[in-house]
């Protein structure tokens, strides 16, 4: 890095906020506060997605993470419990051991990963950049993400849509779409 990139300061600030919110979520026992902080966490990560040039992703994360999933978790919380039970100390230590072993294994692999922002890394060098150069000639729309999503990888997206449909179907089967009629009868 030859010259200092000022947007990196923004990145560091967002990362610090993500860490603070993440640790707060783990420590809170009040479920309402935890769910609300999860929405905040999504919004901060959406802001980071914007500085990482992923505007489409930031858009989706802001709408889904801060909007829909917060509402769903609040609804589920209303139906279940407001407060989590305190956890025994031994369980904290067991979790800490699991997390440190897994984290150490991941840290061991960091040295082999490509440098942040490397244009020649394996992930960035081949197919991703081919989409950018060939989209004007094949599809002729400016937004490359839409071109890849709907045309180059339309088959993948079809699979995703079917998964969303199946998930919706699963929720309907589990909870019933018209609970007023008869579905909640067995309680």
């Amino acid at each position, binding site marked *: 890095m030859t010259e200092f990139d000022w947007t990196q300061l923004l990145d560091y600030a967002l990362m610090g906020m993500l860490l603070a919110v993440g640790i707060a979520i783990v420590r809170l026992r009040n479920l309402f506060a935890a769910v609300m902080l999860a929405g905040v966490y999504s919004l901060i990560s959406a802001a980071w997605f914007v500085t990482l040039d992923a505007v489409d992703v930031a*858009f989706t994360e802001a709408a889904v993470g801060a909007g829909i999933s917060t509402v769903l978790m609040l609804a589920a919380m209303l*139906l279940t419990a407001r407060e989590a039970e305190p956890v025994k100390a031994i369980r904290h230590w067991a979790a800490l051991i699991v997390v440190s072993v897994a984290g150490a294994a991941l840290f061991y692999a960091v040295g082999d990963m490509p440098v942040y922002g490397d244009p020649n890394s394996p992930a960035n060098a081949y197919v991703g950049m081919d989409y950018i150069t060939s989209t004007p000639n094949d599809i*002729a729309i400016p937004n490359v993400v*839409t071109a890849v999503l*709907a045309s180059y990888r339309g088959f993948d997206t079809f699979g995703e849509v079917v998964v969303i449909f199946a998930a919706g179907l699963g929720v309907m089967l589990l909870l019933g779409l018209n609970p007023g009629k008869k579905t909640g009868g067995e309680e």
Partner: protein
Amino acid sequence: MNPHLVLRVVSKLLIPLIVVFGLYVHFHGDYSPGGGFQAGVIVAAAVILYALIFGIENAKQAVPTGFVRFMAAFGVLLYGGTGVATLILGGNFLDYDVLHPDQAHHTGQHIGILLVELGVLFTVFSVMMAIFYAFAGRAPDIPEGEW
């Protein structure tokens, strides 16, 4: 009288704007960030806001559960049907170039992307609404004191 007067007035102003913004995000998705996934979630968020402020029964009158169920399946069928249509016209599955003879401007690609994104919009919107109805239909109404 009404404890949520500000909420009602503000949301009445905002909900149409949110829906229009969602449609803009959808139909302008070729040129700017956006597309069926984002638009579906945004429009669903507008209806969920309506349901939270004015009650779930009013929302069910505006967007009936039968409509939601139908559209969830219809979106998947529209997506798959576009693929089948390209097969029938002699191309590969989801190869949109055969949809329109104008190859120089890739009109077929534009039509195909529009249809497919509409399918995504319908499915995402309807599934989000169905999930919300399923949870909210069971949840007890929040007592006034809890707001």
